[in-house]
């Protein structure tokens, strides 16, 4: 156990709080101190230290010492600034939501709050969660706590880059993220932490600023697999306010961490061995396969034939939904308004100034693929392909229980790279997008280091609503990988 409280895992802190070794206020103060030192990373858009201390104090008062507390009681976390938080500025990383303080709390952040979690602040993100490098935020780039060998600043991945950097730099014990095409898993991989995208419908979307409604899903970003299980338990659950939220009961995910995967069938999809994937990533994947095999799993070669269409399909479906979801930011009721001569002028001025380039690009793409005369060729076709992608997975799960793949095709890259080429940027999500399209749960965990000493993640993909098996396998993989490298930022601190 670390002697710095902010460096604890949730499960360690849970034990310490329960034993009375320290209080939530002390834990929170430690995080606030780390948060101040890590400001250079720009991981937070809004810090809420007073609110955090208030909630930590309340948590300490609630704690009875009889072990009955929720797993998240007194745990300081960062909340991605896509979750609406009552009375606290909520920006979605966009200029267009200037000054917007919701009068309501998103279901997921409220579940955590009710469970006793202490919010430290709102984590930076790509604008409206659109990006894979956290370089599209109106509030500036987030810097990865890991450093390249040449000392250049690296991107933390995206869109939950602030959350990932905040966890990796130990300014919090964990953070919420959201994942539409890889926005939890890819930054988790880039920052050397654990990122879980649950099954679509497992967590309520109510109160989360929408990007692509049929894909968006909240999930935990944590230091360990166990922490992920503890935190997801607090976040998940049916919500009558979200018609797409699943009525399925939430199992005890932590209890699934048995460490035993004997006989578990692990699928290795041939189509994920893509041309151009760096050798070190392929090697790590083989290594992961071997670890699972050594632990008693059965390795099965599988095929997901429509994988190659997933990214293109995603970049039709997600922008289409986004183009409608972002129509409400019109300057009429809240956020930024840039006046004009007429209503139409006001719309154009507000949206022209309020949205960044990437968001505008996606709105345009989305409007285009839904247009009369193009709908059938793009949106409708994409939905048909999406069905085929789901079928690929269903067929595979006849033979296997989980699927192992790399999380991302590279380690974190330098800020400035890939920025002039949106397509190269979109390729970051090539391994994570198919899972999202099928609505399946996927978890990324750090499994090794690149040749330049940067973390690399492996992804496990599970059956719908079978996060338990996913956690069981992830727990074994985590133990085998024994990832213990520490980012430069923390080392130097």
């Amino acid at each position, binding site marked *: 156990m670390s002697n710095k409280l902010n460096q604890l895992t949730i499960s360690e802190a849970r034990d310490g709080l329960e034993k009375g070794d320290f209080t939530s206020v002390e834990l929170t103060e430690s995080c606030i101190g780390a948060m101040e030192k890590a400001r250079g990373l720009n991981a937070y858009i809004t810090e809420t230290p007073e609110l955090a201390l208030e909630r930590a104090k309340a948590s300490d008062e609630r704690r009875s010492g009889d072990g009955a507390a929720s797993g998240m009681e007194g745990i300081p976390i960062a909340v991605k600034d896509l979750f609406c938080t009552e009375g606290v500025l909520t920006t979605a990383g966009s200029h267009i939501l200037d000054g917007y303080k919701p009068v309501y709390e998103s279901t997921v952040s409220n579940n955590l709050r009710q469970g006793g979690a202490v919010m430290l602040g709102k984590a930076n993100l790509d604008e409206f969660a659109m990006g894979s490098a956290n370089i599209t935020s109106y509030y500036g780039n987030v810097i990865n706590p890991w450093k390249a060998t040449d000392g250049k600043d690296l991107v933390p991945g995206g869109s939950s880059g602030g959350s990932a950097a905040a966890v990796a730099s130990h300014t919090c014990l964990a953070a919420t993220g959201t994942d539409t095409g890889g926005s939890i898993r890819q930054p988790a991989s880039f920052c050397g932490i654990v990122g879980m995208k649950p099954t679509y419908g497992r967590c309520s*979307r109510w109160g989360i600023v929408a990007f692509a409604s049929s894909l968006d899903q909240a999930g935990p970003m944590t230091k360990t697999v166990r922490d992920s299980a503890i935190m997801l338990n607090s976040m998940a659950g049916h919500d009558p306010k979200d018609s*797409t939220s699943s009525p399925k009961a939430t199992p005890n995910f932590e209890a699934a961490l048995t460490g035993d995967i004997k006989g578990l069938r692990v699928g290795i999809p041939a189509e994920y061995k893509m041309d151009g994937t760096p050798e070190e990533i392929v090697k790590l994947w083989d290594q992961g396969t071997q670890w699972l095999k050594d632990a008693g799993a059965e390795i099965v070669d599988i095929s997901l034939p429509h994988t190659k269409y997933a990214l293109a399909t995603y970049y039709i479906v997600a922008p289409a939904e986004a*183009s409608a979801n972002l129509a409400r930011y019109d300057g009429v009721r809240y956020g930024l308004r840039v006046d004009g001569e007429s209503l139409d002028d006001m719309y154009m001025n507000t949206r022209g100034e309020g949205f960044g380039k990437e968001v505008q690009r996606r709105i345009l793409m989305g409007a285009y693929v839904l247009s009369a005369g193009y*709908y059938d060729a793009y949106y409708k076709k994409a939905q048909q392909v999406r069905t085929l992608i789901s079928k690929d997975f269903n067929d595979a799960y006849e033979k296997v229980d989980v699927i192992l793949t790399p999380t991302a095709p590279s380690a974190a890259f330098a800020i400035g790279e890939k920025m002039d080429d949106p397509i190269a940027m979109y390729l970051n999500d090539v391994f994570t997008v198919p899972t999202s399209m099928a609505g399946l749960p996927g978890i990324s965990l750090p499994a090794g280091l690149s040749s330049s000493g940067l973390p690399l993640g492996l992804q496990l993909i599970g059956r719908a609503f079978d996060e338990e098996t996913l956690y069981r396998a992830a727990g074994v993989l985590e133990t085998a990988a024994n990832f213990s490298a520490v980012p430069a930022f923390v080392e130097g601190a």
Partner: protein
Amino acid sequence: MSYILQGETCEWEVVIGLEVHCQVVSNAKLFSGASTDFGGEPNDHVDLLDAGLPGMLPVINEVCVEQAVRTGLGLKAQINNRSVFSRKNYFYADMPFGYQITQFDQPIVGEGTIVLELGEGHYREVGVERLHLETDAGKSMHDQHPTKSFIDLNRAGVALMEIVSKPDLRSPEEVGAYLRKLRSIVRYLGTCDGNMDEGSMRCDVNVSVRPVGSEELRTRCEMKNVNSVRFAMQAVEYEAQRHIEIYDEGGEIKQETRLFDSSNGTTRSMRSKEEAHDYRYFPDPDLPPLVFSDEFVEQIRATLPELPDERRERYVSDYGLSEYDAGILVAEKDNAVYFEEVAKGRDAKLAANWIISTLFGLLKKEGKSISESPISADRLGKLLDLISNDTISGRIAKDVFEMMIETGNDPETIVEEKGLKQITDTGAIEGAVDEIIAANPDKVAEVQGGKEQLIGWFVGQVMKATQGKANPGAVNGMLKKKLLG
């Protein structure tokens, strides 16, 4: 009944289709818990969703679904157990999401029919294309501030049923009959209050013309948000003439949306097809397909009230009313209920006659509805009882009716106080009869000489002499006996 318009080159017929928006009767909006009450201060009935706040999600109001199904059943329409909500994308300041949630290619209700009543015993069946559920927009107010527009979202998100007819209508009269019949049906069903002046029912009128005998569908124009039956009829008249004049001059009709100006009964262009929005419809990913079971539909069917068509048939077969009278009585549910209360245990034809000719005349004159009638069904019934049991004559009853309105008293009291009781005492009648016979020997001779219709004149004289209180039947019988033997 055909409505044929004479042009310069040929005769034309009009092809009309209606899209009627009916506000669903429900306590809460289609996707939010906010109230649907009419009135209230601006933005009183707005919840987080209605304001389009970030992260808010729609949840379907089951009551609205039931109402749509109920309406579909009332239109004898196909009910679709699976339907889909779509987003219709366009920007307007009083539409907070930047899209309307509506149903596009998979509506909750499919094809149905409405039977139009076009005068005495003349009916025509008109096709309903579909009914779908959608949200209403808010209201922009441009007259509250010199430079700004204000927005009231009270109506934003209120459930509407859009009922689309087939292009089956052929005249302004049919348009009027369609709207009145549809309003009658939704009021019977309790699914829409049908008040066009409050905007809870409004219609878009699509008009085109074609040469008589042709089956083609020519370019149409659409008049949006017409808010009365009369205006809809006027819009058709004007628009049909406009099309014919353009065709006569060798011109072409442009497909466009036009505005009906009720101040002068004309239409003018609002936006052309080129300016028309591309709504970019797609299924709303926030709402799973709307699926319900046959049992759900059957439960609603089991609670359907008797509808105007069935009620009319019952009045004809059970009460012996004419189709025409029955049609008038059933058109408004409240009228029919009133009639049945009056007719209960009484002569139904007499009740129908009194209600249609006397009561409706009075109400029309005073601009009142049946619910505001100064004469209750109970009192009108008692008045009819006085006629039936020969206490008063039908003529005296008319006077009593007037006095009931003036005094607010019940008919028995009036008859008693004013001494209007019919004279059934033969002795008293005989005295009057004898007096009249004695005073008119020349007319007696005429009757006896074969001019029997003159007996009516004698009856009138006797009635006059008795201030109308004599029983006309008894007078007639006695006169016949005395004059003709």
